[in-house]
């Protein structure tokens, strides 16, 4: 399957679906070590994105779709995750100004997204943030691409690494974001933003595996 504009739209719709399904779970994770709004924030944001996508505009580049995601998240999410994901998708959109992505463009997209997150948030791995999902995703994707993997294999590596990365935040003590206020008490809980990153990349993979578009 090719990672074209239609794929990117399916990605967004699958992401919206996945985040709505995980709304309560993400909020519960955030309730444990944050302020209990991450599920609501991501749900609100991606519902707005989907509404925007349906505005009838024809889009010919993957980057155009990702730019809609970026600007809509920026203006509808708020909180820490709004600007972080907004910037991630803005950078990613600039790296994907093309009709179709090959393996190395997927890597470029993920690298740009990660760079967006770290530029804004100044976090590195091990600080119990979404970076702990993005960074391994980028690394794994780059490895598979280097070995000549096809774009779907690259995405799969990214999604799986993000999932493992999110789970790896559980024992960590947060030093960035709201969870850092808890100090040692932040250990023992998964970071909600790392989990939502894993969900986003999982949705990208799912959209690449089937043509089916989830119903709104």
């Amino acid at each position, binding site marked *: 399957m090719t990672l074209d504009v239609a794929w990117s739209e399916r990605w967004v719709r699958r992401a919206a679906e996945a985040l709505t399904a995980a709304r309560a779970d993400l909020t519960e994770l955030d309730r444990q070590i944050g302020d209990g*709004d991450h599920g*609501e*924030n991501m749900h*609100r944001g991606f519902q707005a994105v989907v509404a925007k996508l349906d505005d009838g505009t024809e889009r010919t580049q993957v980057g155009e779709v990702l730019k809609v995601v970026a600007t809509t998240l920026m203006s509808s999410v*708020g909180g820490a995750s*709004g600007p972080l994901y907004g910037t991630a998708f803005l950078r990613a959109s600039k790296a994907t100004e093309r009709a179709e992505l090959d393996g190395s463009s997927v890597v470029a997209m993920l690298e740009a997204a990660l760079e967006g997150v770290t530029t804004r*948030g100044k976090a590195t791995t091990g600080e119990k943030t979404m970076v702990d999902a993005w960074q391994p995703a980028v690394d794994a994707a780059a490895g598979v691409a280097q070995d000549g993997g096809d774009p779907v294999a690259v995405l799969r590596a990214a999604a799986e690494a993000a999932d493992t990365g999110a789970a790896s935040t559980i024992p960590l003590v947060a030093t*960035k974001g*709201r969870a*850092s206020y808890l100090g040692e008490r932040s250990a023992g809980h998964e970071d909600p933003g790392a989990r939502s990153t894993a969900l986003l990349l999982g949705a990208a993979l799912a959209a690449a595996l089937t043509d089916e578009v989830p119903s709104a």
Partner: protein
Amino acid sequence: MKKLLDDPVNAVADSLEGFGLAHADLVEVHTDPVYVTRAGGAVQGKVGLVSGGGSGHEPLHAGFVGDGMLDAAVPGAVFTSPTPDQVAPAIQASDGGRGVLAIVKNYTGDVLNFETAVELAQAEGVEVASVLVNDDVAVEDSLYTAGRRGVAGTVAVEKIAGAAAARGDDLAAVTAVAERVVANVRSMGVALTACTVPHVGGPSFDLGDDEIEIGIGIHGEPGRHRQPFTGATEITRSLLEPVADDLGLAPGERVLLFVNGMGGTPLSELYVVYGRARRLLEERDVQVARSLVGNYVTSLEMQGASVTVLRLDDELEALWDAPVRTTALHW
């Protein structure tokens, strides 16, 4: 969950609608994007003052819009900082030709969203400065945290910077005085109960019948540690001492003592805490020259309180005393 709301999704909008109707003489509520300005708009020739943040802390910030304090306030969703496309127009609407100071509480979300908004407003030709409020001593201020949070001390920053703007100071001077307040104000809070965010529907954390959380912020987040409930005297001590120590208060100094309720605590209990805190300050030979007691920076219906101390000098005291006419603070 029982709350005097209809659909939780519209909680902020419905509340702001009532707020605007009740106080049309003082404020104007804008929708799409959502922000609040003083009735009549920017004051020409005065530095504008804008603040904002997640909702759920009422009367902060919209309750402080008016003469001698804020020109605009930007409420986000409950406990979620507002977006840049809300903040930027509020900044523009507050520009009376001498620039605008954005007062930002130090949370990653607020900082990032205001950052972008300031860039947007600057791109529209508005001169903008920012000040970060980070008065919460419960959080270690080190390389290994997101830094101290901005909590009840924000009221002092907004009041005093507002008075400086009202007397005609330029943007640099207003910013400097705001920074001086930030440098001299510290707070610490306690929760007796958690609060319930409307769209969550359950308590923000679970607390036993005889437990309290020391060092809570204002977002229903858990505090720094949990301990058995004692009484007002002991609890006040555990709030006041870290505040006074961190400020390095010396005998003979003058302060503003501000006891803030988290929303669900009766005023009568806040006065008990005030009396205890005052006694502790007097034991240190610190003079309480100004006082504020009430629910000003809240966490929805959370029961609890915070103690804020601001070191005063003649100028800060005069600016605190300057007239203010907002829905929540008035003298």
